[in-house]
């Protein structure tokens, strides 16, 4: 479970990236964060991951305050960020430092099988397409079995087909262990396909503007009328106060 309490972050004397943001995400819940560029979505995620130190407030993961990167939190960046000097398998095992070698091998093999890349385990990252590289990044984020997975625009650099493919794939993987998922996206359709809840942020300073409960059964069908109706509602919700 992820609990964000009165989180604030300032860069320099003028720039308030986040101001008093509170958010609670239930275990196994999927939350999408949307909002204009620069409204602090990445900062919020990075604070939750312990990659930045909060100015005010705190983040709790499973009840414990976050004080730096933590094994129960996985992170998928916008770019795959694979280490080019490690093979695909070694990249996944990078997340398992300190785990015995034999167990590392078994777990990375399972994680790669889960994302359908067993055949590429010994390939260099330069051989992978963008979608495959991002799947390796997902395998790396999940191989340590985190209870919270944070994703910062994970599919925004992919072509639409690969994107839909990976969205479905993420839901599949999520169904196995049901980690808590927080995902930043610019794509409202993506938010509606994946999330139980869409949290809208506003900028200057970055703050929570409102929350939108996605009222759709799973699996979701983007072409169904109720999906389109939800999209319409979300668009209207976003327009408020503009």
């Amino acid at each position: 479970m992820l609990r964000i309490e009165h989180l604030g972050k300032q860069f320099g004397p003028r720039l308030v990236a986040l101001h008093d943001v509170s958010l609670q995400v239930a275990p196994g819940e999927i939350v999408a964060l949307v909002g204009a560029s620069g409204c602090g979505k990445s900062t919020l995620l990075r604070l939750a991951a312990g990659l930045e130190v909060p100015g005010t407030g705190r983040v709790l993961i499973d009840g414990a305050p976050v004080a730096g990167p933590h094994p129960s939190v996985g992170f998928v960046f916008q770019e795959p960020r694979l280490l080019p000097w490690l093979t695909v398998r070694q990249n996944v095992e990078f997340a398992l430092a300190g785990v015995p070698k034999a167990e590392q091998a078994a777990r990375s093999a399972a994680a790669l099988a889960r994302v359908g890349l067993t055949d590429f385990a010994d390939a260099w990252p330069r051989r992978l397409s963008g979608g495959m590289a991002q799947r390796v990044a997902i395998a790396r984020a999940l191989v340590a079995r985190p209870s919270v997975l944070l994703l910062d625009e994970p599919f925004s650099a992919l072509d639409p087909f690969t994107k839909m493919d990976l969205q479905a794939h993420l839901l599949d993987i999520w169904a196995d262990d049901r980690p808590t998922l927080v995902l930043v996206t610019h794509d409202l359709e993506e938010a509606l396909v994946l999330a139980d809840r869409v949290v809208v942020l506003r900028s200057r300073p970055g703050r929570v503007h409102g929350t939108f409960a996605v009222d759709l059964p799973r699996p979701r069908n983007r072409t169904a009328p109720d999906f389109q109706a939800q999209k319409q509602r979300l668009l209207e919700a976003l327009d408020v106060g503009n």
Partner: protein
Amino acid sequence: MPNATLVLTPPAALRPAPPAAPRPRRRRPWPLGAALPLALLALWETLARTGALPPNLLPAPSRVLGTIAALARTGELWPHLGLTLARVGAGFVLGGAVATALGALTGYAPLARRLLDPLLQGVRNIPSLAWVPLFILWMGIYETSKVVLIAVGVFFPVYLGLMSGVQGVDRKLVEVGRMYRLSGLALVRRVFLPATLPAYFVGLRNGLGLGWMFVVAAEIMGANKGLGFLLVDGQMTGRPQTILASILLFAVLGQATDAALAWLSRRLLRWQDTYSMSEGPGE
């Protein structure tokens, strides 16, 4: 609306390509670069044999090779060769080690960079041969001053290569390291070191090249053994074939040691996504 985009998505994106089959062994391309030197050598040989070139100034290539063979046969060659190699080796190790320590420090720690780099850049602007008299005065005419001079030559390319390499390490990859709770030495070993290796190898190869340049200078200044001594000896005794033999040996040794470094670098940097890598193994 997404459907319209879908049509444009290449079908190749549907399924990942199967892993590449083991690459068929590439036939080595015909060494085109050898054609011109060979032609020039043939021309030189003919001109020398017909007497068009004065033999006391430019002896035939066959005579130069003969000189090397004779030096090898009498055993005279090996001490010269060995000593020159040892000087370059010692200078390379010394200069390279100091450069590695300082380059890593200034690349990693901004404070050290602000403190040390201006001084080192200033020293770099002194033409290195200007140090020679001082080194001889301090360390005598024998090995120490020669090795130190070579080390000075090796130092700067390695230092600059490593420093810029460390500074150029992708912040995003460092963050991946931090995300998986690496810090200190583990972060250096698993992220900084491999990320820096390409720039470091470029520095090492440039440094080795300068090492060969400086060994010539050091041996011309004063030595009674070494390939550089052969140069001077050939000049003093009016034997151009000895000078040319020595030049040829310098070329071969320089090329061979650089090829060894290049081979090592290719082995360690197999992962690199560069144009030359896509061409497969080869120069």
